[in-house]
């Protein structure tokens, strides 16, 4: 099973035994109250230089309030897993938080492209699917998973994948390296104080992200009792022992939506789009929505307002299946 081709993109693979040792000592087995303010969660668990992953989308069930808090705390040299994200790469990059990005999808607007063109942000090429598969590998505690994607492309050349001859069929196949983010950010619909969490609707990879990440911060629309969790075990997307911090963040996906709870804020996205090609405008955007407010709560009070919140809730008329 010789290596026929090896991508030259920047990436690291965690030693599976070092990862296990971390999981053994750092992941609490006892059910302890993990509810804390966003500021404390980010202060405790997001360090300069960390690899940060995100689930699910900028438009839907994304941990937007946590991303804003990371920018507010001015973390630096982060590497970001841009799988199915649209605004976050730009916000983190223009906020000065990023060293590099696993692409995924490099959204949205021309600023982020400019940052790459000028070499201010490094990128490693992947795809939405293989980046998500790398999270599954990380979640399984194996160093790689095989896929037929990436083959024969420049995407593979600038990725961290390796092409090998499959020992069973003798055919070429790509192996993508596991990713074990230092921090995974997942917004959920409901969870208890220990972190037993429920995501409703389709999603990219909430469980894989929580399993693969060394630290998992979840923000939640609602905190419910563990008794309720135990009455519907099939609804538990993420079990408590994978979770390090629980942040109570109603409307935490804004400007994105949370299915069945509130719709996304299209006006806000248009405002973002208008700023996404101009550094000054983006600085003003970040000033307005991130730096000039102390918290998500203040963001809601001063930058969104009750009227908009009620309107976005009103727009969430489709609730079927989101419970």
């Amino acid at each position, binding site marked *: 099973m010789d290596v026929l081709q090896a991508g030259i993109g920047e990436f690291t693979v965690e030693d599976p035994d070092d990862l296990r040792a971390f999981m053994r000592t750092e992941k609490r087995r006892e059910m302890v109250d993990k509810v804390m303010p966003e500021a404390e969660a980010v202060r405790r668990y997001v360090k300069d230089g960390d690899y940060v992953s995100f689930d699910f989308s900028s438009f839907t069930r994304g941990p937007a309030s946590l991303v804003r808090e990371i920018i507010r705390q001015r973390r630096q040299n982060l590497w970001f897993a841009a799988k199915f994200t649209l605004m976050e790469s730009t916000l983190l990059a223009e906020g000065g938080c990023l060293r590099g990005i696993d692409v995924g999808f490099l959204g949205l607007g021309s600023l982020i492209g400019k940052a790459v063109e000028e070499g201010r942000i490094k990128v490693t090429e992947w795809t939405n699917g293989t980046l998500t598969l790398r999270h599954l590998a990380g979640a399984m505690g194996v160093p790689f998973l095989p896929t037929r994607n990436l083959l024969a492309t420049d995407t593979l050349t600038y990725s961290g994948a390796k092409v090998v001859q499959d020992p069973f069929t003798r055919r070429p196949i790509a192996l993508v390296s596991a990713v074990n983010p230092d921090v995974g950010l997942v917004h959920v619909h409901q969870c208890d104080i220990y972190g037993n969490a429920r995501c409703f609707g389709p999603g990219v*990879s909430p469980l894989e992200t929580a399993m693969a990440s060394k630290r998992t911060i979840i923000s939640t629309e609602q905190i419910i009792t563990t008794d309720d969790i135990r009455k519907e075990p099939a609804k538990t997307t993420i079990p408590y022992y994978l979770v390090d911090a629980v942040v109570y963040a109603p409307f935490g996906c804004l400007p994105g939506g949370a299915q069945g709870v509130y719709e996304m804020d299209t006006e806000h996205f248009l405002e973002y789009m208008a700023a996404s090609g101009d550094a000054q405008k983006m600085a003003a955007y970040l000033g307005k929505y991130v730096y000039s407010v102390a918290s998500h709560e203040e963001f809601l009070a001063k930058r969104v307002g009750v009227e908009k919140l009620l309107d976005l809730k009103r727009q969430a008329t489709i609730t079927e299946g989101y419970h």
Partner: protein
Amino acid sequence: MIQSDFTESEFMICQCARLIEDGKIVFIGYGLPQIAAILAQRLHAPRMVQVYEFGAVGSLPETPFVRFTMGGPRNCYRALAWTNMNTIFAQAQLGMVDLGVLGATQIDQFGNLNSTMLGADYTHPEKRFPGSGGANEVMTQCWRTLIVIRHERRRFVKQVDFLTSPGYLDGTPGARERAGLPRDTGPWRVATSKALYGFDDHTRQMVLLGVLRGLSVDEVVKEMEFTALVKEKVEELEPPTPEELHILREEIDPARAIIGKTARD
């Protein structure tokens, strides 16, 4: 001129919709393909099963279409199943997805797509684009891929600056299979704002199959950097029908956010 009755986007969407067969499992990319899929479902393909990379299967999207939406409730409405990305791409890899529908930035004569960068040197791109997203998976795994692209010379190049998603590679017979890509897959049709292309079974070169009524073959092919093959009998492509335009403008996108406005509006 006839164009003023409809926008380029409207024609691209209608062409794309017409090419989506009923009763098939179809992987829908972000943007125009979403609109095209809804249009097809409203017209001739009510039993087509839409699948999305975030895991929705068989949803019946609500209209009007809300800009930016993809994983949201309106787009996932009344789905048959809500799964996740690893599951849906696994099913595509298994050979369960008949057609993939994708937008693209740049395409070459063998149907290879570039959505990553422009320039000769990857480390110093002249222009950086978003990258693959899920396009690489779709072009690798779906049995057929339908590409929707605006017909501009700079988009139709002899060779892509960066091969993001695999077409027929260098066009040699069996090139995809040799690389380990699934057998008998690859780009099938390219629907543009002016024309429709396929690919030659042997040389794998792009072949002009049809042009929009009112346009000549020359008007179309001059808008490409490479010389496409031209089918003996080039089909005349019907502009958007009143019914198609009605559904697009009244039901799907009354705000004209995606389909745009004509000179007359």
